[in-house]
């Protein structure tokens, strides 16, 4: 039913309304509470009193259905990738991915590991990369600022790209996840 239909192509919205909406989107980024890697240790100071990301309207949501942002906090093991794809596809549009750390860019420390993937954007569309291992909370805030800027400018189109190039992403994903047992579309 809802999870077996091909995704609908995003249409154009009215300019002004879209602008206001983008402002709202930028100032209300809800993050899926999924610590995929070691970077999530720096999300705790970020979420708590010391750096307090709620100042920017960023909040943790326990369920992907209600979130806008997925933070890939560092390396992804192949076993996690499967869950992350599931989580990402459960997030409702528009949705964004922030990737933390070297591991997401080119493998980082684990470039030669048999169980972690090296180039994240082959499998999921990434909007913002934050350099560091681990990035400090301040750097993550800067990452969010860049994402906000992108949303306000209407450039944060990773999710559209994912839908339009679903076949490409699926092919790459299935190359790694040999026992693919997810539905073909699950949003």
């Amino acid at each position, binding site marked *: 039913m809802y999870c077996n239909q091909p995704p609908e192509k995003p249409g154009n919205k009215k300019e002004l309304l879209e602008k206001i909406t983008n402002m709202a989107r930028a100032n209300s980024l809800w993050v899926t509470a999924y610590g995929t890697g070691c970077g999530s240790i720096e999300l705790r100071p970020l979420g708590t009193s010391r750096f307090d990301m709620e100042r920017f309207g960023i909040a943790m949501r326990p369920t992907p259905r209600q979130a806008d942002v997925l933070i890939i906090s560092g390396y992804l093991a192949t076993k996690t990738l499967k869950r992350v794809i599931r989580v990402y596809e459960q997030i409702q549009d528009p949705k964004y991915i922030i990737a933390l750390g070297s591991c997401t860019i*080119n493998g980082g420390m684990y470039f030669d590991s*048999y169980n972690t993937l090296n*180039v994240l954007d082959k499998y999921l569309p990434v909007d913002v990369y934050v350099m560091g291992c681990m990035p400090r909370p301040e750097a993550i805030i800067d990452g969010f600022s860049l994402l906000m800027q992108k949303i306000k400018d209407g450039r944060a189109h990773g999710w559209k790209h994912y839908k339009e190039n679903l076949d490409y992403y699926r092919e790459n994903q299935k190359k790694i996840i*040999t026992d693919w047992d997810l539905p073909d579309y699950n949003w």
Partner: protein
Amino acid sequence: MIDKVKNGFEIRFPLYKLVREQHNYLHVKVDMVSAMDAIVMAKTSLGHNVLQLISTVDRIEDGVFQITWILENYGACTVLLISADFPRENCLVPSLSQIWPAASAFEREIFEMYGISFPGNPREGEDFLLESWKDTPPMRRDFETEEYAMRVFGERQPREHIDPRQYVGDIVGEWNTPMGRKRKEEK
């Protein structure tokens, strides 16, 4: 304290090999047939009744897996390591999961990582760290992790790399000497 343990081994397993000895630390090596007896003896009569770790070393050049059981005596705070070599082909090692419930997890991991089977472990074969792994068990020495990673995961950009030693040699003409050309070919 450790002397008592050592005496125990001298009496029961006169052929044991002493690897390392300290005031609260003893590492002995026995043959594969008496390994189980040694562990049971350590647990029942030598006071080393806590299993800390089961570890494996792939000694591929000797064609054996060296299994090491690390047992502790909580009262005296001494460590006893018992090692034994098992042939690498169709490796079967007796399971301790009936004696220590914690052993089951260690044995599941070793089965996954080395392909060593522990007959008697009821949960053997359940996915532990890996998911649907089809290649050589990854911790074996003959599994090349970097090659695997590059083949399966790839990298962002190919490495553009110049070895300074070769480069300097080439530009100054290190190999242009009468005998040098031959040497370079050898290299």
